[in-house]
C-alpha cells in the first residue's frame, strides 16, 4: 500500500505522461483517420490508392516495429525530434489506420441516396462528405472509435521501452527501490483503468447524445 503514498510523485508523473501521449496521439489519429477515410471514398483514384496503402501498411505492422522505425529510422534521415514526439507520431499514425476503417464502415451505413441528393443539389464532394454523409456516419462509429482510442491508451505503454515517461515505465524505478512488484503493478493497472474508464465514459456520453436512435 505504501508504494503509492511513498512514490505518489513518480506515479503522478507516469500517469500524466500516459495521459499526454493518449490525448495528443488520439487527436493525431482522429485527424489523420478522418483524412484517410475521405481519401478512401474520394472520386480521385490516386487519393483512394494512397488511403489504401496507408491503411494496409500501418494496420498490418506490429506497433513495436513501427516505434523502432520511427524512433531509430527517422533520425537517420535527419529528422531529429524529442522521443515523446516520435512516440506520439508512431501511436497516432498506427491508430489512424483503425480510425479510418471505423469511419469508412460508418460511411457505408449511410444510404447512397443521401450522397446522391447532396450531389444533385450541386454540393461538391467535400461538402457532401462533411455536411451530409459524415455527420450521419459519425453516429454509428462512436462505439468502435471509443474502443480504438482505449486500445491506443494501452498501446502507449510501448513508448516506455523507448525511455519516454509514461505510466508502465514507473515500475522500473520502483522495483529498483525494492518495492513489492505486485503492488506496483496493481497501482499501475488502476492508473490505466482511470484513463480507459474516462474514455469509456466520454464515449458513452457521446453515444447517448448523438448515437443512432432506435
Amino acid at each position: 500500500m505504501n508504494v503509492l503514498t511513498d512514490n505518489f510523485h513518480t506515479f503522478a508523473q507516469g500517469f500524466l505522461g500516459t495521459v499526454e501521449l493518449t490525448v495528443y496521439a488520439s487527436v493525431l489519429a482522429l485527424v489523420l483517420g478522418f483524412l484517410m477515410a475521405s481519401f478512401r471514398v474520394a472520386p480521385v483514384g490516386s487519393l483512394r490508392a494512397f488511403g489504401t496503402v496507408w491503411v494496409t501498411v500501418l494496420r498490418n505492422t506490429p506497433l513495436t516495429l513501427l516505434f523502432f522505425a520511427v524512433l531509430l529510422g527517422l533520425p537517420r534521415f535527419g529528422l531529429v525530434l524529442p522521443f515523446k514526439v516520435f512516440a506520439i507520431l508512431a501511436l497516432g499514425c498506427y491508430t489512424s489506420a483503425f480510425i479510418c476503417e471505423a469511419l469508412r464502415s460508418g460511411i457505408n451505413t449511410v444510404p447512397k441516396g443521401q450522397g446522391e441528393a447532396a450531389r444533385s443539389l450541386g454540393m461538391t464532394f467535400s461538402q457532401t462528405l462533411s455536411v451530409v454523409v459524415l455527420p450521419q456516419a459519425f453516429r454509428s462509429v462512436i462505439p468502435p472509435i471509443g474502443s480504438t482510442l482505449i486500445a491506443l491508451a494501452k498501446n502507449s505503454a510501448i513508448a516506455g521501452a523507448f525511455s519516454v515517461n509514461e505510466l508502465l515505465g514507473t515500475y522500473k524505478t520502483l522495483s529498483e527501490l525494492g518495492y513489492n512488484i505486485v503492488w506496483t503493478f496493481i497501482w499501475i493497472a488502476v492508473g490505466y483503468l482511470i484513463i480507459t474508464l474516462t474514455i469509456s465514459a466520454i464515449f458513452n456520453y457521446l453515444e447517448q447524445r448523438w448515437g443512432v436512435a432506435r
Partner: protein
Amino acid sequence: MAVDPLIELQDVNKHFGELHVLQDINLTVGKGEVVVVIGPSGSGKSTLCRAINRLETIESGAIRLEGRPLPDEGKALAGLRAEVGMVFQSFNLFAHKTILQNVSLAQIKVRGRKKEEADRRSLELLDRVGLASQAPKYPAQLSGGQQQRVAIARALAMDPKALLFDEPTSALDPEMINEVLEVMQQLARDGMTMVVVTHEMGFARSAANRVVFMADGRVVEDRSPEEFFTNPRSDRAKDFLSKILKH
C-alpha cells in the same frame, strides 16, 4: 416544338455489364416543356433520368444543357447539378436535418445565400407545397407524401432551370400520390421544364407536352400524350398500354 432546346441527348449509350441499358438515345427537351418518360421496368428510364445530371456516367454520345456539354467532374459538374433539380423515388431527405434545414442547406452551401435569406426562401417554398407548419420537424416524422413535397421544395430552392423526377410517386401510398402530383401539376402550369419518369398515366395525359415511351433501352415512341394514348404506333407500346390501362 422544342423551339429553344434546354436538354439535348445525342446518340447516348450505356451498358451495365452485359446489359445495354441505353441504346442510341436521342432526345431533346425544350424550355418550359414537360416530358413524361414511361415504359416497363428495366427499360432504362431511370438511368436516362439520372444520366442527365450525371449521377450515371455515359459511355458514348453527348448530353448538353443549354448547348453546353456536361462537365466531367469537380466544380463545373457541381455547378451544372445546381441548375438541374432532381427528385428521387425514395425522397432522400437529409435524415439528420430538419425540414427547414433540408431546404436551406444547399442554398447556403452552394448558392452562398445568408442563412436568414435562405430560411425565408425555404419557408416560402414550403408554404407553396403546403408544409410550412412542418418546418421544425425531422424527415422521419413526416409521411411519404409530405417528404416528397419537401424534396420538391428543396430542389426548387436552387432556382433550377429544369427538374428531373425519377419515379416520384412509386414509393407512396395511393392516398399520398395525389398530393405530390398536384404540386407537380402546378409546377408544369407555371412553366417549369420537367422530365418525369413515372407510371402515373393520368399525370402523363394531363400535364405532359410529350410522352416518351422506352423499352429495352430504346426510345420507341416520342409523341403528344393524346396521340400516344389513343393511337400508339408500335406493338410494344400497344402491349404495354393494354396491360396497364385494363384495371
